[in-house]
């Protein structure tokens, strides 16, 4: 008979076994996403582009004196690009478009990030709670949702902006956040409804776990991939929100440059016909940013859904 107590696994075999186990186990989320990005070169390029751009405008705008930049320089009235050291020319008040573009991008992206964080957090919490508790709670929460959906969003935001005196970027972000959580909450709710019926939730309930712990400790991590995808996509959308309202003149005040106020230069028929450099760069920047960010969102979506991944093919 063999002596079992003496039988030990030698280190080499242990190493091999561990490697085997690791290769069979599901790779970590970070690794999946990274593999997806590596398989999709344009997406990697978009990611680098967006991140580098955000870092660049944040740092560069520290070196720009905003009040001085917004002063009128009559001598450089509508300078053409590359004239007198103005990389992208100047607008009707002789202000450098390049500098305004940098500071404006920082402001617009900053607001979009803030808006995404607030509205997504609120929308996710709303959807989770509404979907998990169901019944009476859900009914009322959905009536609030219906009511908010009925409101003409752009009009309400414009009315609110005119009511509030001396608003700044923070109040503006809060006003936008009141309206832009709806889509997220609907999405999260429907997923939570499906998730709540699963066995692990039933098991948690039976073993006496509290509802909040189940919602935020059990269900939320399980739908985290959906949350990441939705947040990225709404970030791209939110860039359009602030710039659109600033364009109409109800976003950031005129003394604070934003991509929207730059595009609003196009409202002047002279600018739109002859002085393209006053507004076109900002418009193109928004298009490129939105496309790049949503493209990154698509990669996240593919990583979240095993059947769509490209890396393993």
């Amino acid at each position, binding site marked *: 008979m063999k002596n079992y107590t003496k039988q030990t696994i030698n280190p080499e075999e242990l190493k091999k076994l561990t490697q085997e186990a690791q290769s069979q186990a599901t790779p970590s989320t970070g690794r999946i996403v990274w593999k997806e990005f590596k398989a999709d070169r344009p997406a990697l390029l978009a990611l680098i582009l967006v991140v580098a751009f955000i870092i660049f405008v944040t740092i560069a705008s520290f070196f720009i004196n905003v009040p001085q930049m917004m002063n009128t320089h009559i001598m450089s009235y509508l300078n053409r690009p590359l004239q007198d050291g103005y990389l992208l020319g100047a607008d009707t008040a002789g202000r450098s478009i390049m500098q305004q573009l940098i500071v404006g991008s920082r402001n617009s992206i900053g607001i979009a990030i803030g808006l995404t964080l607030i509205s997504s957090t609120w929308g996710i919490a709303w959807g989770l709670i509404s979907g998990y508790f169901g019944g009476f709670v859900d009914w009322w929460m959905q009536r609030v949702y219906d009511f908010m959906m009925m*409101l003409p969003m752009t*009009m*309400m935001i*414009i009315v609110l902006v005119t*009511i509030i005196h001396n608003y700044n970027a923070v109040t503006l972000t809060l006003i936008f956040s009141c309206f832009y959580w709806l889509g997220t909450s609907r999405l999260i709710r429907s997923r939570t409804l499906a998730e709540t019926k699963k066995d692990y939730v039933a098991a948690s309930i039976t073993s006496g776990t509290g509802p909040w712990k189940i919602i935020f400790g059990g269900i939320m991590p399980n739908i985290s991939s959906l949350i990441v995808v939705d947040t990225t996509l709404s970030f791209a959308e939110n860039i359009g929100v602030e710039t659109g309202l600033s364009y*109409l003149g109800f976003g950031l005040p005129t003394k604070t440059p934003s991509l929207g106020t730059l*595009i609003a230069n*196009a409202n002047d028929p002279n600018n739109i016909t002859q002085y393209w450099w006053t507004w076109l760069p900002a418009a193109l920047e928004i298009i490129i940013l939105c*496309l790049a960010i949503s493209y990154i969102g698509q990669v996240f979506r593919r990583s979240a859904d095993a059947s769509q991944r490209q890396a393993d093919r």
Partner: protein
Amino acid sequence: MWKTILRRILIMIPEIILLSILVFLLAKMMPGDPFTGSINPRSSPSQIHHLMKLNGLYDPWYQQYWNWIVHLFHGNLGESYQYHEPVANLIGQRAENTLWLSLFTMIMTYLIALPMGMYAGRHEGQLSDTLIRVYTYVTYCIPFFVILIIGLWIFGYVLNWFPTTGSVSATANSGWQILLSRIYHMILPGLLGALFSTVNIVQYLRSEVIDAKHSDYVKTARAKGVPEKQIYRHHIFRNSLLPIAAFGGYSITGLLNGSIFTESIFSYPGMGLLFINSISYRDYTVITALVLLFGILNLVGTLLSDIILSLVDPRIRIK
């Protein structure tokens, strides 16, 4: 069926009441008073005071709200302080323009999206399908107002193909000329609006077609020897037509929201442009009326879509 519709309408009533209160309070909170516009250097503060009192602007808000509602039911929306014209007339003129533009946009959207969705579904996985997917994806991501401005620049100013402002040219005088001129003014904003809002319909129709392609009734039709073209046209398309029609109701929200941008960019004299003008003049009788109208239209659009969907899909109906 009727029960569902009745329930939906009953739920709408408190929503409309709540909306009217909200709109009214917001209008009250807006800065400035309505008589600032009609002040001339000779009017004294006591006269303004008298006017305010005469119009009941010192009453408690619920009394003012009640008066407003009573007037509303008599079809009296008040008078615009900017144009010195009854609000109902003012909105009536503009609503017609917005209606035409929205209708045109919606028709163009369907005309573009339906063939695309069918084609993409039929040729799933092929190059054309990929191209259509890329197109819907790109149009979905780009903010709408940026495209409108770039479109206006390229086709309106650089190429000079389309008019850049207004809804009808001033020189048109006979009925036909006016109609043609109207359509001519709508083509650019309408087409841009349609091209950039096809994503929902195309994607829905595409997945419907892909599902239906492998369904039993299509297999039966094929086995009976029905030509492929006819299968797509009569069997599959007919089946997904109603849910697609339901998208029309939901798209009212998008169209109305978009009208604010479209009309101010193209200086098209519709309700959206009227709203923007009224905001800058603090013309709040017009503002309240417009917000209320837009809210109710949103609600009606959703109701229509829900009714169509519950007709198609009995599972949605409330028992």
